[in-house]
């Protein structure tokens, strides 16, 4: 564990030195992604194949970033992309693969077993508390989880004594990433963000990071946000760049809007079963490097497929 990860004083000074404008945040996805630098610790919003900021992941890959530490509570295809593209040298997560039907990630196995990428495993809650401690501006949070397991030695979690009862608890260190990349349902142009359904860890991640990049399914008038201010989870002054990206998580899901494309995962995994990471290289060429814009990327799936996934989402949420 790198001491800069939990240095709450330096992390606060970075925010103090930063403008916190209530003004315009809208920009292009490539301009937004340019705020990510080689060697950064990048926290990825959403969870597994839900609300993954795919448009930003794609652009970070196109800009050929290197030596990134990728942090996400449950990692999915975006993690495999970053590994095969050589963008990530380290991942911090509680679990990585796509999901039960697709088995253990062969890409993760190849890169981690081969020593090409370091996989620092924390428990799901511990990773959530690392973000929350940072969001609260403190260097650690006390907890009763992860104690006694071999995960303690992996991440280097220490303990702390409760000054009141004398009881020893786990002390989960804060994690202050350089950059957070998030995908949300709606935002106004000033970066006030709203999320529908399960919130995952996005709100904590946004507060923990120094730089916050957001893509949104919909850019709505300020009045829409203010009429439902109790739905806002990230305030505009926290956001550095906002990008309008419909289907910005596809082929991953966005609650209420489109279901994850399991068929696409089937094809993707079949190709890996046949050709290993070469298949992912071909996938990246086709879906990431060749299509100039995200709209071009979506065309590869086609409107019919997108519409089908929208219908499936409605069946599950308009109940």
């Amino acid at each position: 564990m790198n001491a800069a990860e939990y240095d709450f004083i330096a992390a606060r000074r970075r925010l103090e030195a930063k403008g916190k404008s209530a003004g315009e945040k809208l920009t292009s996805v490539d301009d937004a992604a340019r705020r990510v630098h080689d060697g950064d610790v990048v926290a990825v919003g959403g969870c597994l194949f839900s609300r993954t900021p795919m448009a930003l992941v794609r652009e970070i890959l196109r800009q050929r970033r290197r030596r990134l530490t990728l942090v996400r509570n449950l990692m999915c295809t975006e993690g495999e992309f970053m590994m095969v593209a050589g963008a990530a040298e380290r991942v911090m997560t509680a679990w990585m693969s796509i999901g039960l039907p697709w088995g253990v990630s062969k890409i993760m196995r190849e890169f981690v077993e081969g020593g090409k990428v370091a996989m620092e495993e924390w428990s799901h809650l511990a990773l959530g508390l690392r973000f929350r401690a940072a969001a609260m501006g403190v260097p650690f949070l006390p907890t009763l989880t992860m104690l006694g397991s071999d995960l303690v030695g992996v991440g280097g979690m220490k303990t702390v004594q409760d000054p009141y009862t004398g009881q020893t608890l786990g002390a989960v260190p804060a994690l202050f990433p350089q950059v957070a990349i998030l995908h949300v349902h709606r935002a106004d142009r000033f970066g006030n963000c709203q999320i529908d359904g399960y919130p995952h860890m996005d709100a904590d991640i946004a507060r923990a990071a120094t730089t916050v990049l957001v893509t949104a399914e919909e850019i709505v008038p300020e009045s829409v946000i203010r009429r439902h201010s109790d739905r806002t989870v990230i305030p505009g002054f926290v956001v550095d760049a906002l990008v309008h990206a419909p289907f910005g998580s596809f082929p991953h899901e966005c609650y209420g809007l489109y279901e994850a494309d399991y068929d696409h995962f089937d094809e993707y995994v079949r190709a890996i079963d046949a050709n290993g990471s070469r298949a992912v290289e071909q996938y990246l060429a086709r879906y990431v490097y060749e299509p100039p814009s995200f709209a071009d990327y979506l065309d590869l799936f086609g409107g019919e497929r997108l519409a089908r996934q929208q219908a499936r989402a409605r069946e599950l949420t308009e109940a």
Partner: protein
Amino acid sequence: MPSTTVTSAELLAVMGARQLRDDTTVFAGVGVPLLAAALAQQRHAPQLTLVIEGGIIGPRIKPGRLPISTNEMRTAYRASMLPGITDAFLLAQRGFLDYGFMGGAQIDAFGNINTSTLGADYWRPRVRLPGTGGANDIISLCREVIILTAHEKRRFVPKVDFITSPGWLDGDGSRRRAGLLFGGVSRVVTTLGILGFDGESRRMRIEATHPGVSVEQIRENTGFPLEEAATVTVTEPPTDDELAMLRAFDPDRRFLG
């Protein structure tokens, strides 16, 4: 299919469901544990609340659209609350989650589970497994944890290579001494029977066998010696009722095999 042939997954789901009492909460993993919890709710525990680590409380099962992951719309179907991942686990840390209900991978004589790495070096493992997900938190924070797993010798090892999720650690008071003040693994429900743990040594032991299974068969399929409880009972076979309810959740037999 005729109820006379019962798949391993069906057996686990039914036997698992019977472990859950009414007016409680259960932190369930997707797949067989979730099906078992849903069966318990429909059969004998109508006031049971399901909680899923995706930050989902009180969901329903939509037949034919069974959840694949802990974080998707299928899992949140008709849920009563979506608190988020961290806050769902914090409910467990506070003491609101009675049961943890999970599948096993590599498990040892003290109920410790490994879902991280095979081999001696964590950073250069022989085999890298997906990782803990929420298993470590569920086993650390719930009042009582029940593991559902196929009973195979390769899974039941004397000592796991890596303790991803702490059971009773080295037995005796070691779990509490490690700072895990609450909970622990109470039962391991397998395809051969039901295992528990000695109250003192916390070593795994045989508590029940499924119909037609002998304690010898269980021992043959276990990689470490197993004591027997004072009385080893024989479980009631799954009833047609239980199987019918269970199968209605999974008409495509995605998880029931």
